[in-house]
Structures are given as C-alpha cells and as structure tokens.
C-alpha cells in the first residue's frame, strides 16, 4: 500500500514539476513579450535527451553524480507530506521529521560535486565551487526561520507544523517568511542568486559535461525537486493544504512569485550573493526569530 502511495507521489511530483517548468517558460516568455513554447516542452526535452546516445565516458563516479542527486530528490519528496491532518500522501514522513529533510536538501549538491569533480571540465568544477561556497549562505536564513517555526509550533514534524498554523506563519511572522523566501529563491536557482549555472560565465555550470540520459535524469530530478521544495515551503509557511486543489494553488502562487522576481533582477556575482544573503535575509530572519520568541 505504501509503495503504491509513494509511486503516486512520485508521479504527481514528476507531472506537476514538468507542468510548472512549462508554465515557467511560458510566463517568462510573456514577460519577454513572446508567445512561448508548448506547455509540456520541458517534458519533451527530457524525453528527447533520454533518447540520445552517450558518446563520452568519464568513469562511473561521474555518472554517480546525477544518480545521487536523483535519489536525493526522490527521498526528499517522500519525507514531505503533501497534505495536513491526513495520512494520505504522507509518504515516509512518519519515519522522519524536518531534520531529515533539511539533511537531504544538502545531499543533492554534494552528490553533484562528487560527480562533476571527476568530469574534468573546468567550467563544471567552477560551477560546483560556486554552488558549494554559496550553499552555507543560502541555507543560513532558511535554517534560522525553520528553527523559529519549530520552536513556535513545538514540533519537528512537518504535518504537525502545517496543522499548527491557525493563521499562516507567512502572515503571522512575515519577517521569518521573507528571510526564508530569499533562500528559497536561491534554492530554486533564480536570479539574482543563479550563479551556479550562469550561461555567460560558466556555460551551464555543473551540467556542462552531462549529455543524453544523464541530462534527462538531471532535468527530471530538478522537476521533482522543485515540486518537493514548493510543498515544503507551503507546509512550513503557508499553512499546508487539505486537498490537491489547495496544494496546487498555493505552490503555484509561490512559484509565480519566485519566477517574477527572477525575471526582474540581474545576476549577482558569487561573493556579492554570499554577502547579500549573509547580511540582508539573515538579519531579517534573526529579527523575525527574536520577535517570534519574544511574543
């Protein structure tokens, strides 16, 4: 039974993730005054890459990278319950709490670093270095906000945190939410924190050397991962969801906000983005933490 549920969760995340990517490309296209691709274009792309042949070999470690990332994304998804106050679509969340998820969030970039490091492509290595040096700054405001939330709701269980919110934490404690949102924009790889795969600087960063099936794997991974992160955000700050419709609505609003923000700002340099993340969102989150514990 649980296996069926997990499979369903995976399918939902896969489908909705690609749908969101399609919407993302369409919405940015409208920002840029054009028509945009078909809604399922990202899905077509990933299938196309899956059908391509591999012509290079960098050893098994290189290919382990995408596989670690993929498994990281899938397990992250399984530990995040889709809905509150029900055991449907809760996956493995009864076996692990928020700490497991936070740990799994770091697994992806690390796996990537392991793989890309053996690839020999200097741009890939550079992208990974950028990603890792940004990682700490990126996670800090998010962790502070999460700690505050855990102390507020008195639990580390995600569905309990979601259920605990009589008013959404985003409205009750806006400073915490803003601090975490900055991190979230970075985690989603949006401007101005998209230093990892900046095309005009380091080609496509860590993905430079991947082609064919492994690139398809990376694309599917990022679709699933995107949905997982959106659901996590909704559960932590937007009061969770009770049905699919509510979940889709809340995640989509969040997603729309993130991509509109990304369309309006240029890219920071790596030191600039670390600097910014350590100063502004961290300060906001710390003030939020103090206010939240004070009251």
């Amino acid at each position, binding site marked *: 039974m649980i296996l069926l549920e997990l499979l369903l969760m995976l399918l939902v995340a896969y489908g909705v993730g690609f749908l969101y990517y399609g919407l993302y*490309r369409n919405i940015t*296209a409208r920002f*840029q*005054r*054009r*028509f*945009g*691709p*078909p809604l399922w*274009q990202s899905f*077509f*792309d990933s*299938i*196309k*890459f899956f*059908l*391509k*042949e*591999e*012509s*290079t*070999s960098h050893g098994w470690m290189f*290919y382990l990278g995408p596989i670690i990332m993929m498994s990281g994304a899938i397990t992250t998804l399984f530990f995040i319950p889709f809905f509150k106050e029900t055991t449907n679509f809760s996956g493995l969340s009864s076996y692990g709490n928020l700490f497991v998820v936070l740990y799994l969030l770091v697994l992806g970039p690390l796996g990537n670093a392991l793989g890309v490091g053996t690839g020999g492509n200097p*741009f890939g290595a550079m992208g990974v270095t950028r990603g890792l040096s940004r990682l700490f700054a990126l996670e800090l405001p998010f962790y502070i906000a999460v700690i505050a939330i855990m102390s507020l709701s008195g639990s580390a269980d995600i569905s309990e945190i979601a259920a605990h919110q009589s008013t959404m934490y985003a409205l009750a404690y806006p400073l915490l939410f803003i601090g975490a949102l900055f991190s979230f924009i970075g985690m989603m790889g949006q401007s101005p924190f998209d230093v990892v795969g900046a*095309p005009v600087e380091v*080609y*496509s960063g860590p*993905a*430079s*050397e*991947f*082609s*064919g099936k492994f*690139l398809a794997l990376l694309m599917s991974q990022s679709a699933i991962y995107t949905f997982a992160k959106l659901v996590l955000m909704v559960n932590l700050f937007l009061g969770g969801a009770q049905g699919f419709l509510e979940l889709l609505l809340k995640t989509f609003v969040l997603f729309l906000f993130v991509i509109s923000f990304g369309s309006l700002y240029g890219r920071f340099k790596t030191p600039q983005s670390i600097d910014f993340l350590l100063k502004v969102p961290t300060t906001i989150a710390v003030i939020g933490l103090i206010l939240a514990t004070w009251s």
Partner: protein
Amino acid sequence: MEEGFLLEQKTLEGDLNSETSHQSSVDFLMNWFRKRSIFVLAYGTGCGAIEMPPTFTSRYDAERLGIRGAATPRQADVIIVSGYCSYKTLRRIIRTYEQMSNPKYVLALGSCTVNGGMYWDSYNTIKKLEDYLPVDMYVNGCMPRPESILEGFIELQKEIGAGKASSWQKYEENHEFYRKNQEAVLGEKVEPSYEADWYLYEGGL
C-alpha cells in the same frame, strides 16, 4: 476564425506535422520527441549569427516550435554553421561537432556555405561545407532572414520526424572521407587528435 499570430502559429505547426511516413509506432514516437525539441548550440560562426538573436527572441520566437539555445555542445542537437567558415573556425566547428552526442544535425546558413558566396575567391574560407561536415539542411541567402531560418528549421524538423535526417551516421560511415578533406585544408593536425577510438565506439559507456 483565427487570424494574425495565432493563425501563423497554427500554419507552422500544421506544416510541421504534415509529413507522413511509414514507420513503426515506437520509431514514430521517438522521432516525434526528437522533432519537437531542438537544442541549438550557441556558436555564431559567421555573419549569419546576427540574424539568430531575432530568430530566437520575441519577434520570431523560435521557442514556440520547441527550438531553443544550448550553451554546451554536449547538450546540443543542432549546430548552425552561420555563413562563411574560415579554416580557423572550421577546426573549432569540427571539434565542437564531434563533441556533440548523437543524433546531431548540421544546419548551414547563407550562400557562403553552399558555394563560397561573396567570398568565392578568398584564400581563407572554405567553399563547400558538405565536404567537411555532413549537412542536413542549407538555408540560402545573404544573409537568410529569420523567416527563412525558421523555415529551414521546420524542414529539418520534418525530416527528423520522418526519420530521414541521418547525417551523423553518414559522418561516422564516411569518417575517412571527411577527415581526408579536413586534413587537406587544415593540415595533418585536425584537432582533436584522438588517442582512443572512442568516437566510433558503440554506446560510449
């Protein structure tokens, strides 16, 4: 009644799907996905590159047909040789082309790739691209307008959909012929000089 832009989009897509051919349903599906998603390598090799930004941006918007840019050769399906091709560039194009993974296609823009064009008597440009690389589609003009580039893409997509575009196989089969021609203009050392014969190696892994 649709008109204006939507009509154009419908006509283009109708054109794209007009090709019918006899192939098994698995092949049809594979080719359909390949046709609907084309990643173009960001390499402006010649002056035709100046018409590529309009093709890919808001006015002509090639992305609505599933055509978009790719940063690295590993991820690209199509390399556009946009116009005249000097020896120095040819060397890089060959190198880039050989890094791309199969199936891959070559789209040649401009009269210069067909027969030398304006630079027919220039000592530093090649005159006939297909001697050095297998070309899937030529788009003529000096330089081709964005509409013609899109037209060329649609023709290419139709060929891919029908399973006819197979230039990369031609390149592997006639590798010696191409390499001989390349060496004739570039000298003995056509980079990259592969130690291992991995290029012709099945599957790669």
